[in-house]
């Protein structure tokens, strides 16, 4: 190694609930190589500079959705964001926006877990079938209707990108709506009328003002903004259909 060791400054927003009144910045000087991700930089801090730094991570390859952070103000998976792209400038790392900070880079995601439960993220069979009837069959078109929305890894970058969620944390938000839509448009599912109640509610899709940043930051190209906005149309249809059908539509 004839090349001089490169050092990058990583500024981390620290918060220790037992010691700090509010979060504060701390700068670390981290030696790095061109193949190191921001996550590896943060891991270096924990291993060699300050063992008390807290953050979530698991797979290191943009599959698990654990390592989301604000990197220079943008919601990003720290495992697929590289230090070399910021060097020689300082890189700022902060817990995901719009969520309460539990400690350092760890956010409190209880609210999202509750929302995820509320959308019933599983197939509610359209008809009861016995095992003897065999598996469900789908055409490629039927698969295509929901496939992109099933790619969500619950990384919550879209929530950190959504100012409306930041202003009103009751908003069901991009990822939960994308997953809700994923089941509603699945040909095997019959739970749409139950889920539409949530779409139509105060917490539902009309909190969205089509900022569109959620879809920009999504690492899996789910396009949650599309799911939310398609359901504005569905919700409006639901509302007006009740005038036409005796028992249909919104409750």
């Amino acid at each position: 190694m004839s090349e001089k060791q490169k050092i990058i400054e990583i500024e981390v927003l620290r918060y220790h609930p037992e010691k700090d009144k509010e979060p504060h910045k701390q700068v670390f000087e981290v030696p790095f190589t061109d193949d190191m991700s921001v996550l590896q930089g943060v891991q270096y801090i924990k291993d060699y500079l300050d063992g008390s730094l807290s953050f979530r991570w698991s797979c290191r390859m943009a599959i698990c959705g654990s390592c989301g952070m604000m990197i220079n103000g943008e919601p990003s998976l720290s495992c697929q964001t590289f230090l070399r792209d910021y060097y020689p400038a300082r890189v700022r790392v902060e817990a995901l926006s719009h969520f309460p900070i539990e400690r350092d880079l760890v956010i409190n995601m209880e609210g999202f877990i509750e929302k995820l439960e509320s959308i019933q993220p599983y197939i509610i069979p359209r008809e009861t079938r016995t095992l003897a009837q065999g598996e469900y069959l789908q055409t490629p078109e039927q698969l295509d209707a929901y496939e992109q929305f099933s790619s969500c890894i619950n990384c919550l970058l879209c929530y950190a990108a959504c100012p409306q969620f930041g202003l009103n944390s009751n908003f069901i938000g991009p990822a939960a709506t994308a997953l809700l839509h994923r089941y509603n448009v699945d040909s095997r599912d019959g739970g749409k009328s139950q889920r539409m109640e949530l779409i139509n509610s105060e917490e539902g899709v009309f909190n969205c003002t089509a900022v569109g940043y959620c879809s920009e930051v999504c690492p899996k190209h789910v396009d949650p903004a599309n799911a939310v906005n398609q359901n504005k149309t569905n919700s409006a249809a639901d509302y007006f259909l009740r005038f036409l059908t005796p028992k249909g539509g919104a409750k």
Partner: protein
Amino acid sequence: MNKRRPYVRPMDGWWRKNPFFVEYMVHEGTALFVAAYAAILLTGLVRLSQGEAAWNAWLSALKNPWYVGFHLLALAAIAYHTYTWFKIMPRTMPPVVVGGQRLPAWAITGSGLAVAAAASAALLGLVWGLVR
């Protein structure tokens, strides 16, 4: 005792913190010019209903350099609003399938802009023909 004390960050000035949000606020802000221009046209309609003198007074008021300046500003703002409107359109629509293929986002944005340009040109041509 529970030692958890989750910290909620304030949202003050949220739209200044990210260039994407600044752009969003600008494109939402240009909607005000659309509303203002609609108000000007409605005023014209009201003045027309009040007779020839009122209508001519409104027409000459529009020739004021300040009004002409406002029109140029409104044209720029509405053009930008149109561009951003169609840019976000693919995200707000159900998938459009043509010949078994999903229409890509650029095609939806492109056709929206083309229709807006054609409609504007047709309207301009019509008005041009009327005043000559």
